[in-house]
């Protein structure tokens, strides 16, 4: 039964909710922001999350993983969305781990996966080179040398890029900018000579970096997947990321919506609770209809990762597009329905609004995924 959580997943969800509410509420993100924390997340918290097994949730047991599959990951992502918890969960445990799992050599898997699982090593994917998601528009070059490769280029919007131990760099070893053929993936140490990492402070107060690669030399063992065939690894990795991000956005939308509905029940104007006004009721009820539809597409996309990967591209685009739209709708309405207090920094609603905008750009906005969905449908 793919669209209903089983007991284990339900239990995981309850645990995650309890843990994050106590240890990493929205207030914690505010503190990280106000203190301009260098890492952008709380390392001690991340260690605790790893001890709970969340860094290894999708990894097979042979690599120290929990082997809970993507539905399991989804419930944790959703809860992290509710609390806006900053951590390398997405960049490292989902995207990084998936890349190694799907494209890594046996020795890469053996060394990296257990370290990722333990939360000791974190990965970041350096893909984007533009202000909008264009996964095969890659100008970063990988030239073959006698001892391996030399990488040159600039990357932007690298989530957790300034703090990750290892950077997965997408570079072109052949072909023209825009081709999906000719791409290769390389694992580069975060402090390799020639790498410059500049942390960017973005709307959501989380971690992204611009990275410059200036004649960065790597050995042949740095290659993940086959040279020039990186797209076949990258595409499913991106889809897994999209689905996981959609699950986080489900949490963002749900939490923001629930807070708003609660506010409608306590705020009084014109001698009445504002929630009794039909104009607001209908808008709230409409959001509920969209939340229900979103819930189904997220669950189906998550279960497709493990059960029907051939359907993943279509379902991932469906989930990301729908959740982009949902997150936008709900966060906008939440601010509006809170009135003046909704635009103050004191109110946490603004944190959801900002996180949603960043999440909406991660691995493709709505128009990117509408175009992809249409293309996959043959029109």
């Amino acid at each position: 039964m793919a669209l209903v959580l089983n007991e284990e997943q339900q239990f995981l969800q309850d645990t995650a909710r309890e843990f994050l509410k106590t240890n990493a509420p929205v207030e914690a993100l505010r503190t990280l922001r106000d203190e301009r924390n260098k890492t952008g997340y709380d390392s001690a918290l991340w260690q605790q999350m790893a001890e709970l097994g969340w860094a290894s949730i999708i990894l097979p047991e042979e690599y120290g993983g929990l082997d809970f599959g993507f539905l399991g990951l989804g419930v944790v992502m959703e809860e992290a969305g509710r609390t806006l918890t900053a951590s390398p969960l997405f960049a490292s445990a989902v995207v990084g781990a998936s890349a190694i799992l799907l494209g890594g050599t046996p020795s890469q898997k053996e060394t990296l996966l257990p370290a990722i699982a333990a939360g000791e090593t974190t990965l970041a994917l350096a893909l984007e080179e533009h202000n909008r998601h264009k996964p095969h528009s890659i100008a970063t070059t990988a030239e073959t040398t006698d001892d391996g490769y030399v990488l040159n280029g600039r990357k932007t919007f690298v989530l957790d890029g300034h703090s990750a131990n290892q950077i997965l760099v997408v570079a072109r070893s052949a072909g023209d900018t825009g081709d999906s053929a000719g791409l290769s993936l390389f694992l580069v140490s975060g402090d390799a000579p020639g790498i410059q990492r500049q942390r960017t402070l973005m709307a959501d107060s989380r971690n992204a970096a611009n990275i410059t690669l200036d004649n960065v030399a790597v050995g042949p063992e740095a290659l993940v997947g086959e040279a020039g065939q990186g797209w076949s690894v990258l595409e499913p990795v991106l889809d897994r990321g999209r689905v996981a991000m959609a699950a986080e956005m489900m949490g963002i939308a749900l939490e923001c919506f629930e807070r708003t509905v609660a506010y409608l029940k306590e705020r009084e104007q014109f001698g009445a609770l504002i929630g009794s006004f039909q104009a607001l009721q209908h808008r709230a009820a409409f959001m509920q209809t969209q939340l229900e539809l979103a819930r189904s597409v997220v669950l189906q996309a998550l279960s497709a990762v493990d059960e029907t990967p051939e359907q993943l591209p279509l379902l991932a685009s469906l989930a990301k597009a729908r959740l982009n739209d949902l997150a936008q709708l709900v966060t906008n309405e939440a601010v509006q329905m809170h009135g003046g207090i909704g635009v103050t920094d004191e109110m946490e609603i603004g944190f959801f609004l900002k996180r949603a905008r960043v999440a909406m750009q991660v691995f493709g906005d709505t128009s990117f995924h509408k175009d992809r969905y249409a293309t996959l449908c043959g029109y």
Partner: protein
Amino acid sequence: MTAADRSSTVQDLEQFRLDVRQWLEDNCPESQRQPITPEEQYFGGRNATFPSEDARIWFERFRDKGWVCPEWPTEYGGGGLSPQQGKVIKEEMKAIRARTPLYGIGIWMLGPALLEFGNEAQKQQHIRDIIDGKVRWAQGYSEPGSGSDLASLQCKAEDMGDHFLVNGSKIWTTAADKCDWIFCLVRTDPDAKKQEGISFLLIDMDDPGITTTPIELISGESEFCQTFFDNVRVPKENLVGELNAGWSVAKALLVHERKLMSEIGSDSPREVVVPNQAARQYLEFEDGKIADAELRSRLVDYDMEMHAVGLTHFRTFEEKVAGVRSAAPLVMKYVGTEAEKQKSELLLAIMGSQGLGWEGEGFNRAEIDTLRLWAMSYAMTIAGGTSEVQLNVIAKNVLELPQG
């Protein structure tokens, strides 16, 4: 349930699927495996005739197999099967495009309500007749003055000792002129609070004092009637549930109606045109993409919406089976019927002037049906509770917002 139990159920269901497939293969006549036209839909009833000999054979075999209402108890003629099995039958029928042998709101709405609220005698008298297609039912809820505000209804039934005396009028009674019986909401206590003075009555339409007049719709069809009750005597035993407690029966029945309407389109008698196929037929393409970017964008929106709606239907089913409560069923009427309207509008845009044919020369069957379905799609966001009322229901029952 242990893992072993679960896998054996899955196996049983797979075996059941194979059996269903085989039975359909052996029993469903070839002529009953193509899209049905509105004229060929069989609703049963006292005066009904089958549209063809094959339709009769098909219905009788289906009925004898117990599949008209596969999930109803066997003691009243149902199939006694599980919801999963019922679903398998539907899926396998769909796979070979087998026609639904018997339609009717007795099956969709009244039957489930009677099984829940009716007494033993009522179940014995009516359920089997519904399954056997002997009685065709009409729904007498709305009145000229009471639509969305259904509980304001005025049609009254006075207690005359051994019978009720019914006076008033019902409107939008679908096919009332062809129906044998009607289930009605009537006011039995004019002094009580709105919802508390209503009762649920079963009325034989052959009773003296009942007349019907048809109403024509914008789709050109006139399957709707106004029904008048003039001193109609209804036996006391036709009261379903307690006196003055008809509102709970009415509400339960509405749940079935809304569920049905949210699934509309999946079993339409008309030639159903799928928008992305229509796009290939009517639109220009450039480099494999629909050249008109705006239409392409609307088409993806629709396809994604339907994809999401379909998955949510599937989820509500799985949740029901697993005994999980969720708000999903309550939103389905709204999203299903709104999506259907969106689809009709989109098809008209894709077809351009070819989508505007009312009848006759210059248009094929699919084109004309598309226009008729477009006109019908407006009714779907009204019937069974308007979209606005659905949002009210969600606001009240799911979000528990304060009522003004």
